[in-house]
C-alpha cells in the first residue's frame, strides 16, 4: 500500500489488523472488535479521557497527569491509586516500558520474570502487550479516573488494539513524534502508516459512541527544540489523525523555559491547530492542549527540582493549558518512587490552584513572540505541503529527507540533524543553524539577531559551544548556559 494521507477503508484496516493481531499471542484476545467496543461502551462516562478534557477546557481548568508505570499488574494498580489519592492527580497514565515500545516482547517476558524474582520493577514501564487485555481491563476497572497509554512506540498497533479494548480512552503518540525521538532505524513512511492505523482504530471507537482522545507527543527530544518545529509536527499529526476520523486531539508542547516564549508557543499552537484543521475541513474536532514541564536534563537536588517543577506549573497556569504532564523531584536520578511522584503532583497542583483564577494578559512582547512562532510554523508547513504535492503524509517523509522538518538531537537516522538550536540572552530557544528549515529571510535574520545579541553580551562567538552549555544549564541551576567567566 502506497503512503497517502487518506482515511483507511475498513477493508484495508481489517487486512492490516489480521497481521497485527498475530504479532504476539495476546493479540488473539482482542480479535472480536465488536466485543471490544461493547466492553468499551460499558466504561463509565466519568472515566472517559476525551470528555474529561473537554470539560476542563470549558471550565478553563488545568488538569494534572503524572507519568507512571511498573512491570507488574498489581503494583501498577497500587501505584496509580496512590497517585490519584495522595497525589490528587486528575488524569492517570500507564507508562509503557521501553522493550514494548520497540515491540521486543520477548525481552519483556524476561523483565517480568526478573521483576517477580527480585521483588522490584526491572522494567521502566508496564508491558501491556505481554500482560494482555484482561490485565489491562483490570487496571482500568480498578481506577476511578480516565486512563491513557503513554509510551514512545513507532509501531503501536497491537498495543492500541489492546488498550482501547480494555477501555483506556486515550493514546499518546504519532507517526513522527513517536518515531524520530524514539528510534534509530524506523522509516517514516512505516511509522506514519502504522499510526494511521492507530488513529483509524481510535476513530472506529469514536464512531461507535466512545470518544477517544489522541495526543501527539509535543516535546519530541525535549532538548532545545525551537517552538515552531515542535508546533509544526504537532499540527501535522493533528491533521493526520483528523483525516482518519479522530475527533479529540490534544496538541502538546514541552516547556522551553522563557515564560513569554512558552506562553506564546502554546497559544500559537492551539490557534494554528484549529486554523489548519478547519482549513482542511475537519470542523468538528475538539482541540485541547498539554504542557510538559521541562523535559531536558533536570537538577539533581530535590529542592531545586521542585523549583523547576513549580516554575513550569506557573507557566501552565498562566497559559491556561488543558493539562500538565508533571515531573518529579527524582527526575534526574531515575523512575520516581510513588511518594516522589505524588510530591511532584502536589507541588504542581498547589501552583495551579494558587493561579486558578489568574491568566496572562496580552503585552506587546507576547504578541510579537506569537507572531514569530506562527510565521515560522507557517513557513515550515507550507513547504511540507509543497514537497508532498499537497499530500501531507508524503510531504512529511520528503521533508525529513530534505531537512525541512529537522528535530535537534534526535536518534533517528531519518532525521537530517542539520539544525542547531541555542537560547538567546533572554532564554528563548532560537535557530542557530537553520539547516534546510525553510524560514523566510526575515525570520532568519530575527533568529540570528537575537543570538548575536547574546554573543555580544557573553563576549563569545555564536556556535555549538552555546548549545552545549544550554543543554547542561538547567541541571546546573540556570536557564541560559553562560560561559564560566560571565558577569553581567
Amino acid at each position: 500500500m502506497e503512503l497517502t494521507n487518506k482515511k483507511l477503508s475498513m477493508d484495508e484496516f481489517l487486512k492490516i489488523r489480521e497481521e497485527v493481531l498475530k504479532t504476539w499471542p495476546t493479540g488473539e484476545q482482542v480479535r472480536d472488535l465488536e466485543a471490544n467496543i461493547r466492553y468499551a461502551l460499558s466504561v463509565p462516562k466519568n472515566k472517559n479521557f476525551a470528555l474529561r478534557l473537554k470539560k476542563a477546557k470549558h471550565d478553563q481548568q488545568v488538569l494534572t497527569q503524572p507519568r507512571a508505570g511498573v512491570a507488574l499488574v498489581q503494583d501498577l494498580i497500587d501505584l496509580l491509586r496512590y497517585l490519584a489519592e495522595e497525589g490528587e492527580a486528575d488524569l492517570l497514565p500507564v507508562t509503557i516500558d521501553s522493550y514494548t515500545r520497540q515491540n521486543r516482547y520477548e525481552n519483556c517476558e524476561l523483565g517480568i520474570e526478573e521483576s517477580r524474582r527480585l521483588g522490584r520493577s526491572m522494567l521502566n514501564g508496564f508491558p501491556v502487550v505481554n500482560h494482555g487485555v484482561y490485565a489491562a481491563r483490570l487496571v482500568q476497572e480498578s481506577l476511578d479516573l480516565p486512563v491513557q497509554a503513554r509510551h514512545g512506540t513507532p509501531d503501536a498497533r497491537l498495543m492500541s488494539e489492546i488498550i482501547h479494548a480494555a477501555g483506556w480512552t486515550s493514546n499518546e503518540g504519532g507517526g513522527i513524534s513517536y518515531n524520530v525521538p524514539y528510534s534509530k532505524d524506523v522509516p517514516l513512511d512505516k511509522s506514519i502508516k502504522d499510526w494511521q492505523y492507530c488513529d483509524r482504530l481510535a476513530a472506529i471507537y469514536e464512531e461507535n459512541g466512545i470518544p477517544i482522545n489522541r495526543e501527539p507527543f509535543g516535546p519530541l527530544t525535549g532538548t532545545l527544540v525551537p517552538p515552531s518545529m515542535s508546533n509544526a509536527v504537532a499540527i501535522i499529526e493533528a491533521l493526520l489523525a483528523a483525516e482518519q476520523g479522530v475527533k479529540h486531539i490534544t496538541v502538546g508542547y514541552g516547556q522551553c523555559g522563557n515564560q513569554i516564549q512558552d506562553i506564546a508557543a502554546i497559544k500559537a499552537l492551539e490557534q494554528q491547530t484549529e486554523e489548519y484543521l478547519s482549513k482542511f475541513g475537519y470542523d468538528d474536532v475538539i482541540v485541547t492542549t498539554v504542557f510538559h514541564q521541562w523535559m531536558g536534563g533536570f537538577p539533581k537536588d530535590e529542592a531545586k527540582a521542585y523549583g523547576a517543577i513549580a516554575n513550569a506549573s506557573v507557566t501552565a497556569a498562566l497559559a491556561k493549558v488543558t493539562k500538565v504532564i508533571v515531573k518529579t523531584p527524582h527526575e534526574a536520578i531515575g523512575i520516581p518512587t510513588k511518594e516522589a511522584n505524588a510530591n511532584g503532583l502536589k507541588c504542581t497542583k498547589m501552583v495551579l490552584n494558587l493561579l486558578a483564577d489568574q491568566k496572562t494578559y496580552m503585552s506587546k512582547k507576547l504578541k510579537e513572540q506569537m507572531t514569530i512562532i506562527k510565521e515560522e510554523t507557517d513557513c515550515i508547513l507550507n513547504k511540507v505541503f509543497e514537497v508532498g504535492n499537497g499530500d501531507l503524509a508524503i510531504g512529511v517523509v520528503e521533508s525529513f529527507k530534505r531537512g525541512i522538518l529537522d528535530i535537534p538531537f534526535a536518534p533517528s537516522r531519518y532525521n537530517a540533524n542539520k539544525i542547531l538550536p541555542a537560547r538567546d540572552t533572554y532564554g528563548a530557544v532560537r535557530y542557530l543553524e537553520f539547516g534546510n528549515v525553510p524560514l523566510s529571510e526575515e525570520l532568519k535574520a530575527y533568529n540570528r539577531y537575537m543570538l548575536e545579541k547574546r554573543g555580544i553580551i557573553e563576549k563569545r562567538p555564536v556556535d555549538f559551544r552555546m548549545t552545549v552549555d544550554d543543554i547542561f544549564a538547567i541541571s546546573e541551576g540556570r536557564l541560559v548556559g553562560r560561559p564560566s567567566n560571565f558577569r553581567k
Partner: protein
Amino acid sequence: MNSNGKTVVIGVIGADVHAVGNKIIEHVLTSEGFNVVNVGVMSRQEDFINAAIETNADAILVSSLYGHAELDCQGFREKCNEAGLTNILLYIGGNIVVGKQDFAEVEERFKKMGFNRVYAPGVRIEEGIKDLKKDLGLV
C-alpha cells in the same frame, strides 16, 4: 586536537534512545584527543564488541539512561572475553538502574558483572575521562 593515541568505543545500550548525552560524550572525548568510535543509541552488546575488535579499542564506555542496564548488560564481560577482548576496560554510566537506589549497592552489582567503573546519575563525562586517563596510563 592532538590525538592521545587511545581508542574508545561509546554507545547507548539496549532499546535506549537517549541521544543527547551520547552526542556530548563523543564531542568531549574527541576534544580530549581520543579516537572515538560511536555505535550510537539502541546498540546491542555485539555492536560494542565488534566495534572494539575492529578498531582495537582500549575501552568501552557504555551509556544507559532508561533503566534497563541490568537486563541489557547481562553477560557483557563474558562476551568480551569470548571475543578475545580480555583486557578491555568496561565503564558504564547514566541512569543505570530503575529508580533511585542506594548507589553503593548498584556499583557493587555492576562490578560483579565485570565493569571496571560504574557512575552514578548525573556524573558528567569529564569525571569518567579523568579515570580513563588514569586507567590507561595517560597521566
